[in-house]
């Protein structure tokens, strides 16, 4: 797999013990670190309890982001990120101002594709 396992990890499993996904018999940070999971870095709740309990202060966030880049991006997350790049908004439906108005909430104007493109290096791609 070529996973770059942090050398500081001594596989104490405290991260697995506190992980809600691990409780579901899903992946855990520990299973990632032990190369037991092949396709699990996106199955992370991002609650970062594991970071708090790690006695070795492993850079778990950085590790998980690197692992995610080695895996295929789940379809719904791919769609969300495409939405962000296209208009600066995660969801496909952007007809929210009418209902906002019914709640007395002000209309929201999205940044839009051209300005998002200024922020994001299109050549990097990544998707």
């Amino acid at each position: 797999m070529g996973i770059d396992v942090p050398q500081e990890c001594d596989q104490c499993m405290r991260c697995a013990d506190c992980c809600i996904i691990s409780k579901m018999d899903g992946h855990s940070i520990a299973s990632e670190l032990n190369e037991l999971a092949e396709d699990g870095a996106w199955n992370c709740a991002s609650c970062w309890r594991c970071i708090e309990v790690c006695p070795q202060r492993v850079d778990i966030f950085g590790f998980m982001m690197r692992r995610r880049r080695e895996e295929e991006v789940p379809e719904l997350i791919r769609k969300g990120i495409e939405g962000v790049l296209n208009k600066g908004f995660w969801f496909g439906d952007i007809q929210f101002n009418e209902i906002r108005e019914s709640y007395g909430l002000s209309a929201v104007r999205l940044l839009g594709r051209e300005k998002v493109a200024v922020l994001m290096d299109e050549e990097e791609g990544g998707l």
Partner: protein
Amino acid sequence: MERMVLYPGCLVLSRFHEYETASRRILKKLGIEVLDMEEFCCCGSSLVPGVRDDWINLPAYSLARAESLGVDILTLCGSCTNTFLRTNLLLEREPQFLERANSCLEKLGLRYNGRTEVRHILEILADGVDEIRESVVNPLNLKVALSHPCQIMRPSEIVGKQNPLNFKAMREIVTALGAEVVDYPEEQDCCGSAVLLCNKAMALEVGRRKLESAMKAGAEMVSVCCGNCLLLLDRHQSQMELKNEEKRIPVVSLPQIIGLALGFPRDEMH
């Protein structure tokens, strides 16, 4: 009057209008003037860093917008909060990222100097708990279980402001409303909402465990303070295989139940 710019996030601005409405009303009550983002852009949440190196320019844009107004940015979701806090820390530690972000922001007429403070609504409500307590006109005679916005509390390296395992804020506020807080074993577990997009069955199971445990402990309502928690525990509750299918439990944002206790019009609070 203190001023802040509200960053509702993609989820709340398009799907949880009651949460946003209640938040705005209570902020006004606490003497905070709420400004709007001129042009909204997704913060990228914790998902975009798993795909792209230039993710940081997205949250930097919103932070720069707030800085241009000279105000703090106020968030309603844990994931937006965590992303903005992480961004501030990274831009401070790695000046080359700030330089790169500014080379893009300047094309939009903006510049970021790293000065925007990030504040989640729970932090504001906790600061105002005495005023909230004194303003209660309809004490809540309810047993309420709590589901905390975990991403505003962890990791401590990012959040910094408070003990990451300090879950007292919601408890103190809900108690101030006259409600009884019900303890249950999964209270400090994440709701699992972030997994919805890649493993829906697993997310529903995490949510089911949490809600069933709260109901078993006698809760009549679950209070949350994050759009992601609302998305899973409220909007997806009907898809969970709860043991007693007839039984559902209301999942309501903290600002909404504060609004009910403070006597705001009921039709605006739910």
